[in-house]
């Protein structure tokens, strides 16, 4: 996939560039807002990673400009601004996701993957099928190899999120944000607790564990 990173801090840019290259992406880099906007307009990228504070043209304006030109390329904001006002502002300007520095590369790559795999045209699926797991999003029912599994509403939301991102690593923070709408870092690992409950419910005896723990990164439904 073709990714453009617009970031003025050399260290962060090189870190992200090297990491994404290693994952097999083609990555271009820009050092300031103007250069970034020019590249973004011509380069036909699958994803932009944009720093909020850039020389010449700030990230927010850059994305607004792209969006007003009807460019719907997915945008991931990087920022040192941790306030949620900034996050809401970034999302309102047309950003698709928001990551606060300093971040772990695993977090970035999980979010990049989620954005890249996201279908541009969101077709509302009624049923998600992952291996022997069948999730009916309308009836809100789950079957494992045909057998009905009783889930709490939160557990259902958690499983549905994992299933939508099946085959991708999903981080703890992504789950906190999308399943619980928590935008802070709790001390207690509530994600781990909920995942282990979900596991015990969908892993009916003898069947293989469908939820993989990716060490230091997150979880993945296979």
């Amino acid at each position, binding site marked *: 996939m073709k990714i453009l990173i617009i970031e003025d801090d050399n260290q962060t840019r090189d870190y992200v560039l090297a990491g994404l290259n290693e994952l097999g992406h083609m990555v271009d880099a820009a050092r300031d807002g103007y250069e970034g906007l020019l590249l973004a307009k011509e380069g036909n990228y699958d994803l932009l990673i944009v720093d909020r504070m850039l020389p010449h043209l700030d990230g927010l304006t850059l994305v607004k400009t792209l969006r007003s030109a009807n460019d719907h390329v997915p945008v991931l904001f990087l920022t040192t601004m*941790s306030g949620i006002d900034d996050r809401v502002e970034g999302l309102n300007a047309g950003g698709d996701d928001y990551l606060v520095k300093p971040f772990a590369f695993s977090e970035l790559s999980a979010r990049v993957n989620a954005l890249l795999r996201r279908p541009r045209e969101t077709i509302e699926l009624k049923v998600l099928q992952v291996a022997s797991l069948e999730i009916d999003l309308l009836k809100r029912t789950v079957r494992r190899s045909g057998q009905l599994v009783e889930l709490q509403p*939160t557990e259902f939301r958690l499983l549905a999120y994992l299933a939508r991102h099946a085959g991708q690593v999903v981080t703890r923070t992504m789950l906190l944000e999308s399943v619980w*709408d*928590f935008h802070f870092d709790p*001390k*207690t690992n*509530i994600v781990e*607790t909920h995942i282990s*409950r979900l596991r015990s419910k969908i892993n009916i005896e003898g069947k293989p564990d469908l939820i993989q723990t990716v060490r*230091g990164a997150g979880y993945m439904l296979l």
Partner: protein
Amino acid sequence: MKMPEIVGTISFKLSALYLSLFLASFLAIGVSVYLLTCQTLEQQLKTSIETEASRLKAEYDSGGIAELNDEIAELLSFPSQARFEYGVIDSRGQLIAGTFSDFTPAEGWQITEQKSIKTTSTLNSKVHFYISVMALPDNLWLGVGKNGESIENAGTAVIKAFITGFALVIILGSIGGFYISRAFLVKIQRITISTETIMAGDLKHRLPVSKNRDELDKLALVLNLMLDKIVALMENIQQVSNDIAHDLRTPISHLKFRLEGALNGNLSTNQYQEQISLAIEDVDSILATFSAMLRISQIESGSRRSGFNSVNLSQVLSNVTDALNPVAEEQGKTIHLELGQDVILYGDKELLTQLAFNVLENAIQHTPLNAQVYVSLGASGNQTELTIADNGTGIAEIDREKVFRRFQRLEKSRNTPGNGLGLSIAAAIVELHGGTISLVDNHPGLKVVIRFSTKQVYAG
């Protein structure tokens, strides 16, 4: 106190302005009094001259020139300073009777100038002379005249009185203005000296406030209150920097020990990886502490208020309880949630979620096995009350205020995870929403009571 300094003060300028305004009106009054006095006196003089002339004309009419002559002679025989002058002339100006012929044979008023008779009148040596001329039959003219010295004298007196008053006003006004300005300057100077003392570092010093309670004293009082607030904030910052120095040094030193240990340890690749990932965990926890601190200062700045909206507090509570329930159950604890009708609060949903989460998480973490935690939300009249109570060991009364301080971790909880910022964040969030948070004894256990007032709350 130097003269130029006083001249520059506001009170001096105001005094000068008032003084000039007063002098201008004083001058206007003086001029009108002078003109009115002269006019009235002139009118009176003319009337008396006319009466005298009419009387003499009547004498002539009854007895001819001889009787008039006798009458004039008789009148002139009384020596008087304020007497009239009389004369009868023919058409050529020849004096026929009386002593006075300085007028022309034409009926009406004639005003001439005459040397002043009075020696006291030094202001002008000439005075006006008023003559009323009347035509008599037989082509004769009767003139009766009187000098206007009394008018000039009265006018002069009026001018003198006003000049004296004018001088007095200038002298008194200048002296008064000077003293008022000096009193003002002295006060300002005291405030300046105090301010300089404070700026030099004596933050305990306060501006002087006199018993007069004038505007300057009121200003000084307000400034003193501001200084109190600044001192409190500075102490807070001081406290925070000490806390940061202390509480971040510890994990950073641990990290350093770990890295040094790994470096000197001659480990296998797997063991190195293990050490590095542990080191990353250490760094993450340090970063989390930083984020929490940034969040507190962001909340305390109040800028979040601009994003306030209607928040369903009941829903927030059930979400948070739902998230923490499995955690509690894992530790053998039970959360009891008791929600009345939906409570809608005007506030920041994310922060209210974090508030509920932090307090509930705290209750779960710091209670012994099998503890019961009760969460309840109630709106009564004009208040919303959120209570999170447990039947754990509670917090001793003397420690209760401490838990809201940054990095404060009570001795008995030193070995549970956390950075001691959870309740500080909670307190900051409550304050942002104009509420109160307090800890009370639950006999046994701890009860956290959070109240929000009606202004922000709409039950609904």
